[in-house]
């Protein structure tokens, strides 16, 4: 079929007055193109056969990687170029408490529960923001990275409330996490209460007990992630400082000492 088409083309070229030499060059090009096209079709068929058998897409089509716009999946689905995102207004506490009251009166307990949960979410977000406002702006020369300020609440009691602030300057970074109603509490208290985990005198000491402003604490060091200082406060809360590229143990301890632990404790209603 391909041969017939080429012959026909050659005849028509001769008839229209193109010299045989030119025609031969053209013919060669057409032949090349035809061969390339045939190869591509064969490749695609082989790829499809492999895909059907193994369920794994062959690399040929996705040579550009997942981020490339020419990937097979991206053909008809445009990438999102940006939007305003979600509105992060916390739920209105008073309105939700009102809803809970009305639903409870109407014996609509499921709805009442949902409303209380939303109210809790709202109040936890406010607690979180209050705590963030009370944290220092700079710590050991590191500035607050404002856009990394984070308050996470599940309104659920289980994971509870997590407040995070990051400080940084160059490659030195301090992450402060305050967790309330945390499930980690029991694990940390176990460390502190159990003498069996007492420090060793070997060279590769990875963690030990210490104190921050009179509060019992655990300090850990890892070659990959740096220093980590954990302080349980009150019954259900803890503060964790993670320091990357802090030179010494003393360095991270003095950073932690610049925080108002009692203030955090008070805001969280801890004794």
């Amino acid at each position: 079929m391909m041969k017939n088409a080429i012959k026909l083309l050659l005849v028509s070229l001769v008839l229209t007055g193109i010299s045989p030499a030119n025609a031969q060059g053209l013919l060669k090009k057409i032949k090349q193109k035809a061969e390339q096209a045939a190869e591509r079709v064969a490749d695609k068929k082989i790829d499809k056969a492999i895909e059907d058998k193994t369920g794994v897409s062959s690399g040929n089509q996705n040579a550009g990687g997942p981020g490339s716009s020419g990937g097979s999946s991206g053909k008809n689905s445009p990438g999102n170029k940006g939007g305003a995102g979600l509105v992060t207004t916390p739920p209105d506490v008073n309105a939700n408490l009102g809803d809970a009251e009305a639903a409870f009166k109407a014996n609509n307990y499921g709805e009442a529960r949902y409303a209380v949960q939303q109210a809790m979410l709202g109040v936890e977000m406010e607690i979180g923001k209050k705590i963030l406002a009370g944290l220092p702006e700079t710590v050991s020369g590191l500035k607050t990275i404002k856009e990394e300020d984070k308050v996470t609440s599940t309104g659920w009691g289980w994971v509870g409330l997590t407040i995070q602030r990051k400080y940084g300057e160059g490659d030195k970074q301090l992450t402060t996490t305050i967790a309330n109603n945390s499930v980690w509490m029991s694990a940390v208290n176990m460390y502190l209460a159990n003498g069996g985990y007492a420090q060793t005198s070997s060279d590769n000491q990875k963690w030990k007990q210490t104190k921050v402003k009179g509060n019992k604490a655990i300090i850990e060091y890892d070659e990959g992630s740096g220093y980590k200082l954990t302080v349980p406060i009150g019954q259900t809360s803890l503060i964790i400082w993670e320091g990357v590229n802090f030179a010494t143990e003393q360095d991270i301890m003095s950073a932690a000492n610049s925080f108002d632990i009692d203030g955090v404790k008070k805001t969280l209603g801890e004794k």
Partner: protein
Amino acid sequence: MRKIFLIVLTAILPASVMAQNFNKHLATAKSSYSAGKLEDSRFAMEQMMQELDITIGKEVLKLLPAKLDNLNMNAAADNVTGTNGFLGVNIHRDYGTAEKKAEIDMITNSPLVASINTILSIPFVGNSADGNQKRVKIDGYKGLLQKNVDSETQKPSYELQMPFNSTLLTFRMGNADEAEVLKMAALIPIAEIAKMLQ
């Protein structure tokens, strides 16, 4: 006459105490919030949540039949325990005698729901080759039925686990065959319970 009055009173009293507690915590939550005592307000809300969980649990118990086929309920064993936040509430009822007993347990906000759902969504995993575990459907809800044989008495017992929303319902029955277990399980008003626990 006095007896009837007493019975009515004992039936109404717990509900009204519950409502009183809820309203008391609600008032505390509101006033603490207005006064800027956020942590106190939050604690009051946690209390409200617990009251609600227990109220919901008691409502669910009302939905369960008093008799499961020929097995009578054991009213004294009815139990609703509210844990704070994490597991929601545990609801328990059992039927029959030690010889032949059926038990219903429900855990709301159960972390086990996800794992059971995974098993239910993969047919290959859900049905074991020895026939001791299989997927069943009751009242439109999928469940996982497991059979255990007592090594001493050789009597089989069954456990049916059904997740809905974030609740896990477990129905256990001893000394019965599969058909009987499924027949009994079909008497549980799952759709109504699911609506209540949503």
